[in-house]
């Protein structure tokens, strides 16, 4: 963690206290990890192993979950299947053992791609707009500055469902419903408040003297912003971008209400992966696992910046 380690003197915890504290934390961490480990394990189980009683920890791995995630299958008679040639790859082989053939690709990949495009698109926009506004609020005299900032923050207090009704009507009228552009604009507007608050905190900490000096050397205000302030704010911009990305990546309420096919992202799609007789748990787990990988990597890489993003910039250390 980035929080400064201050050297304890007389207040050092004793080795025993440390060991006890450590073992309690490790216990909690292990318990908290069980559901996540279970998701990954279930993704490589056969459907029978996934729903066995008692739950299986040791099993023969199977690719069926991933196959069912990426393909659609149709049921055929064994006679018909015998008339076909050799199976087309592993997934077809697994399908044929269940009297099915692979009919085509599933919608998972397009949904995943939508998630990528919408998350990255809205992040770039929100960070760009947020950086400009944050600089404006930080450096210029803006009339009603505090009111505007609070207004920007208060846009986050509305339940998403409440905003979804008029947005649904508005998008239907102007032709943005179920489009990627519509979702990008929507997520940008949700994220921009976080971006402004966070980046204002970061830019406030860059001494004004740098810009003043640059301007005395002949830069215009805008050049000073681009060449002096932006390089100094890189860390803050990166941290902010990651928070915007996580929100857009994980968002469900707007996605489920405002998209139906064309622009649907992965979160509304994964829960409706249906197998025979209910949810196809290995396939759902496979879809979930792939969806979680980028975020887990992010978390490990940027744990130093987590705190500020989480608290809207309220906690500075």
């Amino acid at each position, binding site marked *: *963690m980035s*929080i400064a380690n201050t050297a304890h*003197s*007389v207040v050092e*915890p004793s080795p025993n206290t*440390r060991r006890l*504290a*450590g073992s309690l*934390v490790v216990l909690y961490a292990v318990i*908290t990890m069980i559901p*996540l480990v279970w*998701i990954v394990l279930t993704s490589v189980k056969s459907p029978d192993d996934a729903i066995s009683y*008692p*739950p299986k920890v040791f099993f023969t791995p199977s690719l069926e979950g991933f196959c069912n995630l990426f393909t659609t299958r149709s049921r055929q008679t064994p006679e018909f299947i015998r008339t076909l040639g050799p199976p087309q790859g592993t997934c077809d082989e697994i399908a044929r053992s269940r009297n099915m053939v692979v009919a085509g690709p599933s919608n998972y990949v397009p949904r995943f791609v939508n998630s990528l495009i919408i998350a990255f698109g809205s992040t770039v926009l929100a960070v760009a*707009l*947020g950086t*400009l*506004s944050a600089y*404006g*609020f930080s450096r*210029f005299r803006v009339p009603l500055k505090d009111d*505007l900032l609070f207004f920007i923050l208060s*846009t*986050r*207090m*509305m*339940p*998403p*469902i*409440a*905003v*979804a*009704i*008029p*947005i649904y009507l508005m998008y239907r009228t102007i032709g943005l419903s179920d489009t990627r552009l519509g979702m990008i604009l*929507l997520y*940008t*507007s949700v994220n*921009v408040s976080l971006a402004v608050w966070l980046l204002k905190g970061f830019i406030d900490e860059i001494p004004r003297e740098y810009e003043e000096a640059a*301007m*005395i050397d002949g830069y*215009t205000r805008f050049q000073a912003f681009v060449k002096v302030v932006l390089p100094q704010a890189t860390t803050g911009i990166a941290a902010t971008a990651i928070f915007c990305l996580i929100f857009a990546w994980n*968002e*469900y*309420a707007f996605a489920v*209400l405002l998209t139906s096919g064309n622009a649907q992202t992965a979160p*509304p799609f*994964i829960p409706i992966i249906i197998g025979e007789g209910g*949810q196809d748990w290995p396939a759902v*787990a496979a879809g979930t696992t792939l*969806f*979680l990988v980028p975020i*887990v990597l*992010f*978390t*490990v890489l940027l*744990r130093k910046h*987590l*705190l500020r993003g*989480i608290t809207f910039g309220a906690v500075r250390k």
Partner: protein
Amino acid sequence: MNDLSASSRITYGAVPVQAAVVRRIRGLSDKVLAWLFITPTIVLLLAINIFPLVWTIYLSFTNYRANRANAPVKWLGIDWYQTILTDPDIWAAMQVTAHFVFWTVVIETVIGFGLAFLIDKKFRGHGMWTTIILLPMMLSPAVVGNFWTFLYQPQIGLFNYVVGFLTGRSASSFQMLGDVTLSPWAIVIVDAWMWTPYVMLICLAGLRSIPDYIYEAAEVDRASKWRQFWSITLPMALPFIMLAVLFRGIENFKMFDMVNLLTGGGPGSTTEVASITLKRAAFESWRTGYSSAFAIILFVTVFGLANIYVKALNRVKSR
């Protein structure tokens, strides 16, 4: 005034002059630039946040239905508001929401602060374990909430199996999602699993912000560890704890995604939090006017409570 007009004629860079004057001569003026920098954000928020909000306010006074866009719209005044405030279902939903917010915030704060307190002891490897604990809150509540329905399956679910194993009951004897007394706890458990690390992180920042010399002084005064905790640690970390409570409170008041996928508000309406009621009214029975009025009532409630709370928080901070 005279020296101003004199300095505006100077050649650039010859003498260090007031930056403000220099700015007025070259490039875009600050006024124009401020306007250019801030306007796009405000325009976007007006278009996608404020305009819909105003529209919602308008719709809440009408009998408009989104699935019959061409029907004539009738102005009803405050009828919906009266209907909602006297509707027992709405009060039930608010009660479910209040219970949900209360229990999640209490549990997350107690466990979160406890974990932060332990991590602050800086045992070996605390950085790695902290990162592991943080993982659940980075994940999509919808996607992970959906998977919890699998863990909660009566016969085959891991949760039921483990609880059954520990309590000696059979794993199929209780239904976390299908039982009216257990289902509210099922959503509290998942929320606590996801968001306790969030509270922990904020509390950790609070604990790390307490300077060591205070504890050293307490040691010199022979104050017991117990006394130090009650007189130093807790009061100084309190603003941070309150901040965590505020953020979790607002978020859980709006809770939708996880509950929608875990229980959908069921069984019956035992886990029907406000957002689920809103979704049912808006997108299932298409009572747009009614749901808009409820949305406004919710927004005003959150806004009002948050404001009162922030005032209290500032009082604690300034102590």
